[in-house]
């Protein structure tokens, strides 16, 4: 079979070196797939010419779904006919990216049958990405996937595939059950996930603690990050052991505390918890001695996204402390109110974070009936351009204020 592989002297350079090679992977797939063979050829040409050879994707998909497939066509279909269509399929991963060998093999079987044999495990939103197939293959793949218990993920202006950190499955710091919430939200928003109806995409990401191992604060419209509100649990014996083991507690732990709320006198570690910022540093560093408190929940933040068009945003605090309790009706109700307001007033291709910047956080909160809290801001306004809404009327007593 090897003689069927195109000549790829440039790409072959990338088979060398210690890091696993994607070129080798394409060649592995190319053993059985003409698509992957043509991909190799096309990619070699891109490497030679320093330019991609893909066209803007048209709208392709499976019946009844508006998302889940990214259409892709080569601009050199004559030369590389097997990648003239080269669509990707986004498949909703199981929460926490856990698999059995069996499940993986089932996925591989489906993909080997209909596609290029190439995948991304995973895409950067979190989906399983099947990389490259023809339009005709979409329906058969979809029906075999659902048969195997898998469904498509999001694309376009819809709820995108939610994802989460490993959380309580393997992490001692998880302040709530990220996997359960992720699964529940994914199921709850099946319609919104598969049938784009928003001004733009909407992403959920769930992290179990402020270390934020799914980068939710940077990469999701709604970032749900675990946090606690009582005292950090201290095991003083273990603290002593760290000190004896040579850890420089003053410099490396206390000295790095952003709340400046730790004190180490060489013997006892004290934390003024009312000033603790829940940054995780001390806990990260003294894994055996310190643990998050017991009154655990999550901080809900809103609005992060990549730069296009108004500049990148980080999510910001919406609910300082939320107790996640299945079926999470309080959260879902709030999200629904927010989606309603955003769908009503948002412009096309305006993410919710941009929308809030445009209409003002105060107004947004009011419209969505969300309580205002000082935790939502790093600091109050610095400019005096206040839209006062209350004022006295001529005939008022001096005491009452009047809304407009």
């Amino acid at each position: 079979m090897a003689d069927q592989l195109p000549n790829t002297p440039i790409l072959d350079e990338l088979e060398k070196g210690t890091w696993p090679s994607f070129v080798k992977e394409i060649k592995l797939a190319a053993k059985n797939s003409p698509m992957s063979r043509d991909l190799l050829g096309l990619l070699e040409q891109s490497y030679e010419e320093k330019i991609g050879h893909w066209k803007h994707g048209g709208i392709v998909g499976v019946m009844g779904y508006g998302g889940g497939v990214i259409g892709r066509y080569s601009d050199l279909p004559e030369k590389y006919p097997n990648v003239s269509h080269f669509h990707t399929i986004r498949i909703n991963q199981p929460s926490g990216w856990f698999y059995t060998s069996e499940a993986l093999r089932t996925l591989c079987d489906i993909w080997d049958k209909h596609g290029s044999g190439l995948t991304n495990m995973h895409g950067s939103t979190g989906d399983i990405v099947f990389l490259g197939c023809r339009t005709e293959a979409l329906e058969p793949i979809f029906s075999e996937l659902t048969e195997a218990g898998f469904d498509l993920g999001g694309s376009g202006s819809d709820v995108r595939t939610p994802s989460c950190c490993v959380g309580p499955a393997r992490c001692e710091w998880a302040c709530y059950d990220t996997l359960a919430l992720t699964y529940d939200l994914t199921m709850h928003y099946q319609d919104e996930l598969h049938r784009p109806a928003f001004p733009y995409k909407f992403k959920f990401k769930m992290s179990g603690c402020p270390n934020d191992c799914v980068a939710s604060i940077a990469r999701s419209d709604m970032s749900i990050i675990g946090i606690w509100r009582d005292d950090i649990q201290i095991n003083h014996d273990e603290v002593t052991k760290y000190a004896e083991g040579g850890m420089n507690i003053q410099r490396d732990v206390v000295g790095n505390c952003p709340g400046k709320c730790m004190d180490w006198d060489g013997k006892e570690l004290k934390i003024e918890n009312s000033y603790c910022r829940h940054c995780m540093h001390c806990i990260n560093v003294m894994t055996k001695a310190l643990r998050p408190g017991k009154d655990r929940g999550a901080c809900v933040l809103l609005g992060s996204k990549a730069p296009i068009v108004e500049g990148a945003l980080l999510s910001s605090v919406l609910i300082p402390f939320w107790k996640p309790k299945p079926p999470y009706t309080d959260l879902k109700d709030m999200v629904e109110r927010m989606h309603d307001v955003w769908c009503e007033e948002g412009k096309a291709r305006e993410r919710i974070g941009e929308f809030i910047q445009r209409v003002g956080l105060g107004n947004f909160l009011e419209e969505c009936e969300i309580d205002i809290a000082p935790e939502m801001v790093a600091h109050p306004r610095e400019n005096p351009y206040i839209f006062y809404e209350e004022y006295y009327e001529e005939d008022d007593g001096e005491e009452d204020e009047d809304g407009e």
Partner: protein
Amino acid sequence: MAERLTDIGPPHYEKFLPPIVKENYGKWLYHEVLKPGVMVHVSESGAKLFTIRAGSPRLISTEKIRNYADLAEKYCGGHLRFTSRHNVEFLLTDEKNIDPLIKDLADLGHPVGGIGNAISSIVHTQGWVHCHSAATDASGVVKAVMDDLNEYFTSTKLPGKLRIALACCLNMCGAVHCSDIAILGIHRRPPKVNHDTLRKMCEIPSVSASCPTAAIRPATVNGNPSVEVLEDRCMFCANCYTVCPSMPLNDPLNDGISIWIGGKVSNARHEPMFSKLAIPFIPNNPPRWPEVTTAIRNIVELWAANANKYERMGEWIERIGWPKFFKMSGIEFQKEHIDDFKHAGLTFKRSTHITF
């Protein structure tokens, strides 16, 4: 034929959890890093779960996935997971299986590491492999950089975690904007309007509206309605191209890579930070982008040599100040580094907190 199933969602995660995870779900007490790429989580029950993390190119064949499945069956009851940075993790209960598994992974060409104060895999995107927007390739650059930095994946000798990400265009699918080091594909020439196709494929008002700098305006070209681009106003964001295929920006001569540094996501110590521009432009030089790998290595080594323990890239530079970073790194400070977008004024140095 069976009834068409839709909206079934993903499989429930519980189906895939290994027994030890199910038993100790939410009961983990602490963890320790045993050696590069290997850690143990100890439960309140005393149970121990060993995790072995192997690097992955992310773009993998079904054959590779089958290899993983085989290893999982051989060593850990057919259970495994992937991470948020696309590595694969094997979840062992038997400590004795650690070294054999590492050996098998090595044979497959997969290094074990990325845990603790190390570089983990580079979050990245499609590049020339699949996307129409790409100003550079993704997988190739990542391979070249990781080949060069592999020693920091398989050891924990860095001061803190180092997260590198790559996005092949300003859409930033890799969400690189908060990375210790971000590799970002960039265009440097305005869109070349294809007037013939434009009037058929695109709506002129939405094309004009798509431009954040108002560089696009409706115009009549050869007697037909189209648009013109005020080239001086274009900052090459490609938003017009996303909206309209007739406005391609790809340009083999002028596309390339920019390097951004000092971002972070975690709340540990410092609040999350955006990455900032370090190197405005490096030409695409496939297959190994040597100027990119060299530039990144220099930055990594400068940080590794000078940062305090636990200090992420951005925290270190914030402590010493950006002017010092430019001096130490030898990178020239240029006009491109000065922000001129919406909040530019807030990035100006509004104090005399200067170092000499």
